[in-house]
């Protein structure tokens, strides 16, 4: 089994995917720590799972549905829904621009 080294460049790429900003010392720290953690994870390769399916859900419930009707008990009044938001405008949440924002990341 080959050793996986997580590089600082990879850490920066992951941070971007996860929408997190890191200090340079965190980048270096995480690169070292992720390499160590991956070593632990890679021990799983000692176990043969060639014909074993994955378990995503442990209590065997699947396709749980409900009637397609509005549950009024769960509707928040607009004022309460907006209460915890920092930026609102005319009763809406204000969201940051997500298109062409790459240079800001």
């Amino acid at each position, binding site marked *: 089994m080959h050793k996986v080294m*997580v590089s600082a460049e*990879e*850490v920066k790429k*992951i*941070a971007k*995917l*996860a*929408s*997190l*900003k*890191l200090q340079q010392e*965190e980048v270096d720290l*995480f690169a070292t*720590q*992720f390499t*160590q*953690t*991956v070593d*632990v*994870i*890679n*021990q*799983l*390769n*000692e*176990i043969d*799972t060639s014909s*074993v*399916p*994955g*378990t*995503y*859900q*442990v*209590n065997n*419930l699947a396709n*749980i549905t*409900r009637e397609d009707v509005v549950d009024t008990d*769960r509707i*928040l009044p607009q004022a*309460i*829904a907006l*209460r*915890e*938001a*920092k*930026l609102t405008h005319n009763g809406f*949440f*204000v*969201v*940051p621009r997500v298109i062409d924002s790459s240079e800001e990341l």
Partner: protein
Amino acid sequence: MNKQLHELTIGEVHAGYMSKDFTCVNLVKHFLNRIEKYNHKLNIYLALNEKALQQAAEVDKEIAEKGITRELLGIPMAIKDNFLTVGMSTTASSNILKGYMPQFESTVTSKLLAAGAIFLGKTNMDSFAHGSSTETSDFGPTLNPWNTDKLPGGSSGGSAAAITAGLATAALGSETAGSIRQPAAWCGVTGFKPSYGRASRYGCIAMASSTDSPGPIGRNIKDCAIITKVIAGKDPYDGTTTPASVENYPSFLDKKDLKGIKIALVKEYMLKEMRDDVKQLITDAVTKFKELGAEVEEISLMDPKYAIGVYTVIQRSEVSSNLSRFDGIRFGHTRDQFCQETKRRVMLGTYTLSAGYYDAFYKKALAVRTRIVSEFEEVFKTYDAVMGAVSPGPALSVGASKNQPMFGEMEDVLLEQSSIAGLTSAGVPCGFVDGLPIGLQITCDQLQETKALMIADCYQQNTNFNLFPDLDKSL
């Protein structure tokens, strides 16, 4: 010997209300006074319920008019800060939610309130439940009431310490892999992890959605059984809750012996690095089970080190997905407020789910998870329960989790398997080393809560390890 008010179990509190020995206002005042006196030393509560005394007065009125018709009427409880509670701030011990006032109530806290419980306040935890020490809390660690140089464990460390310190009658915690049983063990109290899907996750701030399980921490198994009955059940707001009917758990307790019960002692759970005195306490528990009439046999399961790998991948992956909702738009602050541990977990999960690594890490972990599930299925064909230590040793010192990116995984090495498989498990004190408590786990198959509670209750009633520190000496 007369017990003090903070030492009473749920049943004893109710008996006191009925005999008019004290009122709910008396009891709540007593706890608020103790919280005032001890909380600044232990950092257990992050926020208090300003209406607790008013609610206690309403309870006294209800008891005078109707008696006690609700299961938790007037029971003062400590609630882990990852459950949304309307009117009380909910932070999951993270700065990103500092000051957040929930817009709706979690299902399990709604059920506790409907059963008449009074919430004293919200308890400290590892930030987003990411840890087993409370040291990742943005609001400082909770200290262990047995010895303030020691950690309480985590992530439900505040809830466990609240019971040890006599700052609530009962507490609500949640477990993803060990977060109820491990702090209960380190604090010397009783914790109970219901099966995955027994209690609703709706309104519980998510960590790993495929294993998160709300559950109680209390003064004994009976109190845990009473609370489990209240919080269990199918919830239309959580599609993973089981439709299986909820049994009247407390009514199955008080068994005189364990005749006919077969318990498996897992050889691999007696870790090489485990201290001999801890192993001895587990061996003593085996002897006690045999005395009580149970059959105990040694079995062999997969090396616990593999559960660490499986849990790390599954949990980090689910964390990275779940915590994407914290964008500072609808509630909370911006993502730069995540602590380093949160960032580390989100990032590792992003990595294990990313293109090129998904098959090697995530799918592999899910396949080994299947192996662990099948192993338990096989064991439970023959045995009623699996037993072992909760934690490799007693509470570690403050600072122990620093620079240990897998601290929680290592401390929960004996708990991850059962969580990954969605099993139910009781954690009860089984002795002391160096003046610190050690916990025993009694783990049963999915939906076998009654069995786990019954075995743990019989053990607890026939042992004398359910002790509490004298805070005036330990603090």
